[in-house]
């Protein structure tokens, strides 16, 4: 009697455990955030980069225009690499590129723009990184495509040629 009943649940339990571990093998080990979020953009107060004046976020974003918010920093090496691509994107007059200077020394940031050019229509500063958290950002560089006060797409890490082509397509 005992020998007949015991093996059955044991086999089921091992079956379930095997199934879960087997499923786990197929999953990616690296966390990939959801990039196609239709989230509302956050509301925050900040300072303008050049003048140091206080700005409220609703005055920056106009619902009818397409914006690319780019989080950058002068100490960030990948930002240096993606900068020519931003200059290129700036040639499209449908797209408004907004810069968010992340945890930076303002003097260094100004030199960075002098050296590589300024693709940004407007820049605001995030000294302690808290505004980036409001946006749900992970670090620098990161870009958000915004239309109608909603985040259409999120680009984590530096932009490349393929992604800028995609942005050009999305704008049209």
């Amino acid at each position: 009697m005992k020998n007949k009943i015991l093996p059955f649940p044991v086999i089921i339990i091992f079956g379930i455990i095997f199934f879960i571990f087997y499923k786990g093998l197929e999953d990616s080990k690296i966390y990939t955030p959801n990039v196609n979020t239709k989230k509302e953009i956050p509301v925050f107060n900040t300072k303008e980069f050049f003048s140091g004046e206080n700005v409220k976020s609703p005055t920056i974003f106009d619902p009818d225009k397409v914006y690319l918010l780019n989080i950058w920093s002068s100490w960030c090496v990948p930002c240096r690499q993606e900068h020519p691509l931003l200059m290129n994107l700036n040639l499209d007059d449908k797209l408004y590129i907004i810069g968010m200077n992340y945890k930076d020394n303002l003097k260094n940031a100004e030199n960075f723009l002098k050296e590589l050019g300024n693709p940004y229509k407007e820049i605001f500063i995030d000294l302690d990184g808290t505004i980036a958290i409001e946006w749900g950002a992970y670090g620098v560089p990161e870009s958000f495509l915004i239309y109608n006060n909603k985040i259409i797409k999120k680009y984590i890490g530096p932009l490349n040629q393929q992604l800028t082509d995609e942005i050009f397509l999305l704008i049209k």
Partner: protein
Amino acid sequence: MKLFIFFLFFILFFPLSTLNAQENDKRNEITKNLRCLICQGQSVYDSDSEFANSLKIVVDKKLEEGLSEDQIYEYFKTKYGEWILYDPGLNKNTYILWLLPILIFLIGGAIIYKSFIVKK
């Protein structure tokens, strides 16, 4: 002497420094339950990355604004998703995680009951 007693009372009944300490404890408790998303296997509390440091500041700000612990978790969940929490809630993605131990416990209990208690 009266002044001394008054002073003693003041120190005993208005432990001002613990107020600050309690807030820090709360901050640590919350950041220990938040995953540092750009680090591997570290909580925000353990990490010293740019991301984690900013998150600590945000937690402080939210505590100052008077948000409760759950409200803060909810806030980060809307920003970064369920993954940022070390203590996931019960939903369609996590039900196996929550129900499997109970299931195994019940099956195990049934086996023990069948083979040892009923036999007697």
